[in-house]
C-alpha cells in the first residue's frame, strides 16, 4: 500500500525539482550527482556483481566523452546518436581490453586494467592531432534532438536535469535487467563460487566479460552526455581520481545494492558542497569511511541499514510475516557480497 503511494510521490518530487530549485548552482549539483549515480551503477555491474574490480572504468567514461567531443562538432549529430555511438565504440574498446585482462585473475586483473587505463590516458594526452591533448576539446555543442541548432530547451540547466533523469532511468532499467532474473542469478552464483559455477557448466569467463562490456558501454554513454553538458573534454576524464570516486561510492554504498549506491552517490556529491570542507580533509574522511565500510560492513551502508532493520524486526513479533515478505521481495542482492 505504501509503495503504491510513494513511487508516484518520488516521481513527482524528482520531476518537480527544477521548479523549486531555481539556483543554477543547486541544479548543477543535482545534475552532477545524477551523473555519478549512472556512472557508479555502470561500474557496479561488473565490479560489484561479478567482483571483477577493474581500475579502468574512467577510461570508458572518458573515451565516450572523447567520441562525442570529436564527432559532435564535426557532424552536428543529435545527442542520442552520440550516446549510442559512444556506447558502441566503447564496448568495442572494452572487448579488446577484456581479451588480455580476463586471462588474469583478481589482483593481477586489477593492475593490468590500471595499466590499460594509464596507457589510454597517455593517448588522450599525447595524440594532439585527434584529441587536442592537454589543450582539451572545447565548444562541444549543446545537446540537440535532431540535428545542429535545434531544440534550445534541452541546453538549459533544467533541460539537462531532465536529460540526466532520463539517462538514469535507462541505466537503472538496464542494470536491473542484467542483475536480476536468470542472468543475475548466474552472476550471483559466479561471485559466490567461481569454481563451483564452472563445474556446473556455467561459462564463467563469458558472463564476466558480458558484465564488463555492458558496464563499459553504459559508462561510455554517460560520458557522451557529460561531454555535451560540460562542453569541454580533457584527458583528466580518464584519470585515477575518478576511479577513486567510483570505488568510494560503490563500496561505501554497498556493492550489488543499487539503492545504496544511488543514495551514496547523491549524498557524497551534495554533502561536501553543503559543508564546503577543504578537499583534502574531505578525502581523508572519505578514506576513513571507506576503510570502516569495507572492514566492518562489506555490504556497505545499505547492508548495515538492512541488518539493523532485520534485527529490529526480529525483536518484534512480526518475525514470521517479515521473513515471508522478505523472501518474496528478495532479489539477487540478498547474498552477502564477497562472502568468504
Amino acid at each position, binding site marked *: 500500500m*505504501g*509503495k503504491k503511494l*510513494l*513511487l508516484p*510521490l*518520488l516521481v513527482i*518530487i524528482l520531476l518537480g*525539482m527544477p521548479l*523549486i*530549485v*531555481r*539556483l*543554477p*548552482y*543547486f541544479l*548543477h*549539483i543535482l545534475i*552532477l550527482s545524477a551523473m555519478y549515480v549512472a556512472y557508479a551503477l555502470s561500474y557496479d555491474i561488473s565490479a560489484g556483481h561479478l567482483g571483477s574490480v577493474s581500475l579502468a572504468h574512467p577510461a570508458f567514461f572518458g573515451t565516450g566523452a572523447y567520441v562525442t567531443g570529436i564527432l559532435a562538432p564535426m557532424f552536428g549529430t543529435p545527442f542520442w546518436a552520440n550516446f549510442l555511438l559512444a556506447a558502441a565504440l566503447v564496448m568495442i574498446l572494452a572487448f579488446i581490453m577484456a581479451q588480455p585482462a580476463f586471462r588474469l585473475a583478481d589482483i593481477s586483473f586489477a593492475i593490468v586494467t590500471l595499466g590499460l587505463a594509464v596507457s589510454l590516458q597517455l593517448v588522450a*594526452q*599525447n595524440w*594532439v592531432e585527434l584529441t587536442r*591533448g*592537454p*589543450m*582539451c576539446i*572545447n565548444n562541444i555543442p549543446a545537446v540537440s534532438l535532431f540535428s545542429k541548432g535545434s531544440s534550445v530547451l534541452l541546453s538549459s540547466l533544467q533541460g539537462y536535469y531532465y536529460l540526466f533523469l532520463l539517462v538514469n532511468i535507462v541505466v537503472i532499467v538496464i542494470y536491473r535487467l542484467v542483475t536480476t532474473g536468470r542472468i543475475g542469478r548466474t552472476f550471483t552464483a559466479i561471485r559466490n563460487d567461481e569454481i563451483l559455477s564452472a563445474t556446473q557448466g556455467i561459462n564463467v569467463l563469458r558472463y564476466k566479460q558480458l558484465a564488463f562490456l555492458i558496464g563499459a558501454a553504459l559508462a561510455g554513454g554517460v560520458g557522451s552526455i557529460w561531454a555535451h553538458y*560540460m*562542453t*569541454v573534454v*580533457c584527458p*583528466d576524464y580518464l584519470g585515477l*581520481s575518478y576511479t577513486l570516486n567510483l570505488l568510494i561510492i560503490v563500496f561505501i554504498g554497498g556493492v550489488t545494492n543499487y*539503492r545504496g549506491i*544511488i*543514495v551514496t552517490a*547523491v*549524498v557524497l556529491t*551534495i554533502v561536501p*558542497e*553543503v559543508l564546503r570542507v*577543504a*578537499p*583534502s580533509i574531505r578525502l581523508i574522511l572519505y578514506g576513513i569511511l571507506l576503510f570502516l565500510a569495507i572492514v566492518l560492513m562489506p555490504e556497505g551502508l545499505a547492508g548495515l*541499514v*538492512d541488518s539493523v*532493520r532485520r534485527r529490529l524486526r526480529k525483536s518484534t513479533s512480526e518475525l514470521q510475516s517479515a521473513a515471508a*515478505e522478505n523472501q518474496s*521481495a528478495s532479489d539477487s542482492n540478498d547474498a552477502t557480497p564477497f562472502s568468504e
Partner: protein
Amino acid sequence: MKRKLTFALVISLIFVTLLSSCAPLATPTEATQAPTQAPTQVSSEETIPKEPIVIGVPSAFSGPIAYVGESYMMGYTLALEELGNEIAGYPIKLVTADNACNPDQAVTAVRKLVDVDNVDLILGSGCSSATLAVMPLLPEAEIAQITEGSTNPKIYDGSGVGGNIWQFRYVPDDRIMAEGFAPFIAAEVKSLSILAYNDDYGRGAAQSYQDILGGLGVEVVSTEYFERGGADFRPLLLNIKEDKPEGLLLVATESDGIVILRQLKELGLTQKLFARGAIVTPLFMEMTKKEPGLNEGIMEGTWWAPGLDPKFDVAFVNRWGTAPSPHRATSYFIMRYVVKAAIEEAAKTGTVDRKSIRDALEKISVETPVGVISFDAHHQAYPNMAVSTVENGTIKLLQVLETKAPTK
C-alpha cells in the same frame, strides 16, 4: 516492500534537506541588490558603511598544482592589505573555491561563487582547461572573469569581440611573449632544442617559439614534452646532448625546473640555457638554497622579474616570509592596480555590481610598475615582460619589453 519504502523516504528526506538548505541560501541573492542602491542613497554620507564587494577566486587549491592557488592568494591578500582592504570606500571580501584544475570542478566552483557567495567579480580559473570550461557560464551569470594565468590562445580568440564579452585576461599568451623573447635567443644561438611541459602552456609556448625562431634563422632541432611531476628526464637530456644544439629552451616552473637542471648538470650538458616559466626567480633561489648555482647563467623571458617593482619585492618577503615568483606577483598586480581601477571606475557610475565592473574593465587604463594596463578588443592586457638572468647567484634584470597584440 518495506525496504523500498525506506529507500523512498531517504531520497525524499535528502531532497527536503536540500530544499530547506536552498531557501536560506537563496535570500542573499536579493541582498546583492543592496549594494546597487546603497551608493546612490548614501553617496554623500560616510556614516553608513557600504556593502562589501565580494571577489571570487576559483583556482587549484588541491591536486598536483595546488601551489598555484596558494601563490595567487598570497598576491591578492598582500595587495588588499596595502589597499586597507577597501577600494573606493567599499570593503573587499575574498572568497576562494577549489577547482583542482579540473573542468568539472571548475564549473561547480564558479557556480557556487556566483549563486551562493554572490561574488561581483571572478579572478580565475587557474589552468586553461578550467578557464575554458567556465567561459560559457559567464554570459549566463553576467559576471566578469579576469584570468591571471591561463595562456591558451583560444581564450584570446573567444573573448571580447571574439564573442564572450565577460572574459578578460591579464597575462599575455605565448604567441605574444615569444615575439618579445625570441630575438634574445636568436642573438646567442643558431640552433636550439625545446623542452616543454606537456600541457596547454608548454605546448602553446613551444609552438610559438618554433614558429618565430624559424623566421629568425634559428634551427629548432627537437621539441620534447614532459609531464608535471615527472622524475626521470635523462632519456630526453641524453638525446639532446647527442643532437648537439647550441641552446636549450626550458618551458617549466620551479618544481620541475629544479629536477631537470639537476639532471642536466649530472649529464654534463653544456648548452646555453634559456627559460620561459619560473626558473630565474627568487622562489627558485629559495628552493635551491642547498644546491646553489643550479640556474646560474640562464636567461629567462617571462611576465615578471624582481626589480620591476622593488617595493613589492620587499613587501612580499616581509609579509609571507618566502620569496616572490611570477605567479605570486601577477596576482598582486591584478588586485593592486587592475581591480582597484575597475572598481573605482565602476563606483563613478554610482552602482558597483557585476555589470558595472565589467563595463569598467573595458574602459580602464592604469599606470603600473609593469606598464600601462588596459584591455583591448579581445579583452587582453599587455603588461611588460622582463628578460633577466642569473649572475654570480643574483638575478639581474636585463631588459623590460613592451608587449603587443599577436601579429597572426
